[in-house]
């Protein structure tokens, strides 16, 4: 059986790495990108991931912009997005709600992360 694929978009190398290690240990195939633009580039190549873990505050292209971009594409917009951010209560988020399937606040509880992933993971054909 093919490995489940998850895309992690986070500008912090450390977080990207440990999430990758953790989820790989759980058996997922992990793709990583340091910002929205890189993530978008990765999505151009199939096979596409069944879930995107997205940070919001990032250089080049932030989380809001990334979501706006994938929502333009009929296929890409079907990929579930879990927002993982330290800024869940920021005014930015209040002003500009994010169209996503769930939020996880940093520091992320890995157990909770696994639960959420299991809940929302959905491979798009």
């Amino acid at each position, binding site marked *: 059986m093919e490995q489940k694929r998850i895309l992690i978009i986070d500008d*912090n190398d*450390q*977080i990207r*790495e*440990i*999430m990758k*290690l*953790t989820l790989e*240990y759980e058996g997922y195939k992990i793709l990583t990108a340091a910002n929205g633009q890189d993530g978008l580039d990765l999505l151009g190549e199939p096979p596409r991931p069944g879930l995107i873990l997205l940070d919001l505050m990032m250089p080049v292209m932030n989380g809001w912009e990334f979501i706006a971009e994938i929502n333009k594409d009929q296929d890409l917009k079907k990929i579930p997005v879990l927002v993982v951010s*330290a*800024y869940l*209560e920021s*005014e930015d988020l209040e002003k500009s709600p994010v169209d996503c399937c769930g939020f996880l606040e*940093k*520091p*992320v*509880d*890995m*157990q909770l992360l696994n639960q959420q992933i299991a809940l929302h993971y959905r491979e798009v054909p």
Partner: protein
Amino acid sequence: MNFQETFKLTSGIYLFLNRVGEVVHASSAFRKLPELTGHPTADLVPLCKASLLEVCRRVYGSQENLLFEAQAGPGAGTRKHFQFEAIPSREGVMLVGLETTNRAREIEKLRRNERLLSDAQKTAKVGIWEWSLADQRVEWSPQLYEIYGLTPEMYEPSFEGYLSLVAEEDRDRVREVIGRAISEKSSFSHDEKVLRADGSLRHLHTWGHPELDASGEVTGYIGICQDITDRVRMEMKAHEAFQLYRQIFETAEEGIWIIDRNNVTTHVNKKMARILGYQPAEMIGKTHFEFMDRESRERTQKNMQKRRLGIGEQIEMDLRHKSGDKVWTIIGSSPLFDRDGAYSGAVGMVSDISRRVRSEVLLEAQKNVFEILINGGNLNLALNDIVFALEKLMDGRASILLVSEKGDRLRMGAAPSLPRSFSEAIDGMGIGPDEGACGAAAHSKEVVILPDLRSEEVRPRYRKIAQEFGLGACWSSPILTLNDDCLGTFAIYFTEPKSPSERDLEIVRDATAVAAVTIEYIKLFRKEHKSRKNGKLLADARKVLGSSIDYEYILKKIPEVIVSYVADWCMLTVIDEEGALVPIGGAGEPEQMKYFGELKGYRPDMTAPEGMPKAVRTGLPQLYPFITPDQLEPDPSTGWAIIGTRDPKYLELAKRLGLTSYMAVPILVRHRPVGALFIASSRSDRHYTPEDLEVAMELAHSCGMAMDNARLYKEAKSAVKAREEFISVASHELRTPLTSLKGRADLLATMLERNAFPKEVTQKLSPIIKGLQPDLENFAGLVESLLDVSRLGSARFFLKRHVVDISRVLLETVEKLKGDLDPQGTIVVKKFDPDIVASVDQLRIKQVLINLLTNALKFGKGAPIEVEIFQENSELQLAVRDQGIGISGKDPRRVFRPFERAVSERNFGGLGLGLYISNQIVEGHGGRFELESVPGKGSTFRAIIPL
């Protein structure tokens, strides 16, 4: 039994008279004495008993013993013979009688009654002694022993022994008195001081009466000794009192005048004599009528009738001075009575009220003045009343001139009786030695008398005026304050040349004094009015300036406040970074406001010698009371104008705004100038005074404070904002590495759990990884606290309320915490109501409980911690009670403030945020925290949340 009664029973003929000749004691034998004839003195025959009394009084008066014989009975055969001796002393007279018809028998009788006498002795503190000259034997009655404080066992009486008891200073005198009496075969009496056995001093009076044998030789003495200590002491007191009265008499502020029953003066004190211009000796012996005119004499005749009836009163009476002048007095007069209650004269306390009577006229005027003023009348009108009063007292026409505001001229104050043209002629008179009488008086501050205005000595200008108005003399008196400042002059004019008498000068002085008080009062009245206004200004200004901490608002308000009270227009400048004064606000009348736009570009030259630049440079306020139009032009020599500029544009502006007086006041903040106020008057009747300057300084001080407060607030506000931002950013930034760290620890833990490593590695790693977890939890908790604080600060703290079974939530929390942190089981749920349902943010309420419990574990010294979760009056109560160290200090509730902790951070770590956040959470739920804490005993935190 008392003395008198005892005496009645004795057979001896005794009589005691006191000092005023009253019979104190009379023995019954005396009472039974028949009518006597005899020859004590030529004019006392026949001797009746009444005559005996009269004899005694005479003897007392002369203080000489009198020995006489008397007979009674009709025929020679039955006639009884008596011998009497009257023995005087200061205490009175003792009359001793002996029936010589059968003397021996009488003496025997006397002896028999000794016992009775002794009682009498005791009662009157009287002792009896007997002295036989032949054998020098002395006998004392027991009472005499008592008087001396001796007993027969201690002391055997003798004459020398007696003398040794007499005080040393009296001894020689006593010896002499007795010796003389023996040689003259006469009685004696004397006072003496004796020393008692107990060492106390007693005053005694001793009478001695010779006993004669048939041949008339003295065989001894029998006598009485009386203890008069008490009376002597009283006398001494009386003497002291007398001295005191004497002193009062001589130094009294009032005249004291004592007359006898015949109205003859017996005593006057110096003051009394002075009132009437005499020496005391000149008045004594004259009746008081001799110091009165006819009218007063008649009144006094009537008044003396009242005195005789014992009535005193206070009367106004005019007396005659030695010079013939009338002296107005008030006399408090009281009758005097002698011991017998007979009228013996009167004493009068006399006050000279002549000046007062004169002053009353002036004071009446002053009263009128004040009334006029209080009712809002004007000063000149008020002063007319004082002028009228002086004119009433003197036959002339008066005027009051006032020193002008600048102090260089005299302006017309009041001259209601002088022609207007005269007033105009002297109005504006200069002050100086060569000016008219008033100018000279104001200059020298002395009374100036020009007795003849026609004389050559008067300056031609004033001579001409005098001639024109038909004035012959002018006396002018300066009106001076207590500080000797001249307020003006009071002048009186006469049509003929005239020099003042002493009395005239006195009246002028009095009138001037009243004028001075009046004018000062008027000034005070106005000043008070002004200072009340100023007080209101300052209060209002502080209110306005204190009402806001908005810097810009305050700068705008300052000139407005000033203009509403003390200025016609006002400009506020502040010092910018380059040290230049920049106008930033102005206020004035609407028509003046339009010029302020042009002032915007005004930058005063800071080197200017006057105005705001000087005020800022020196830090001292500058007062310019009078600005003349030419001072608004550049000074030809310096190029500067009085307002501290030489720019024609701004000088023109000042002229258009109008400027008659101004103040330049620096605004200081912590002693450094931050700006200046230009407070201006454009009216001719408003000239700033030093008092105004004081108010302006106060105002500038308030402005400075307000500006500083506003600035500080602005800074503090940005500092607070910066801190909040820092906490917010820092806590978020902390989250990222924390996420990574926690992720790595979690991953390691998971891998260990799943035996990803060889067994021996797992064994070694396992405790390390386990130890990492609580540290990370703790770290995460601290970061969360910081985040909570930043949320609270930024008003982004909101509660996510849901209806929950809060009892269950809290109980689970306690159980979970007990499992994690309290293996010893110190936490005990003491009281618990199940099924409390509330709409709360359960996570936050849990946070409160966790905070309270972790604190209790931290500070609880391991003693049991009681938890109560219950409902009372539709409130949820969540209480945690520890028995730990408690909270010391005055304000235990400080623990609810951020970054506060009950104890030093050296002993207990933490950020000091837990209780702050808990309190915010509870208050966010509309609840409150109650705190009881006893240092050393423990604390109870009680969160109360309405359901």
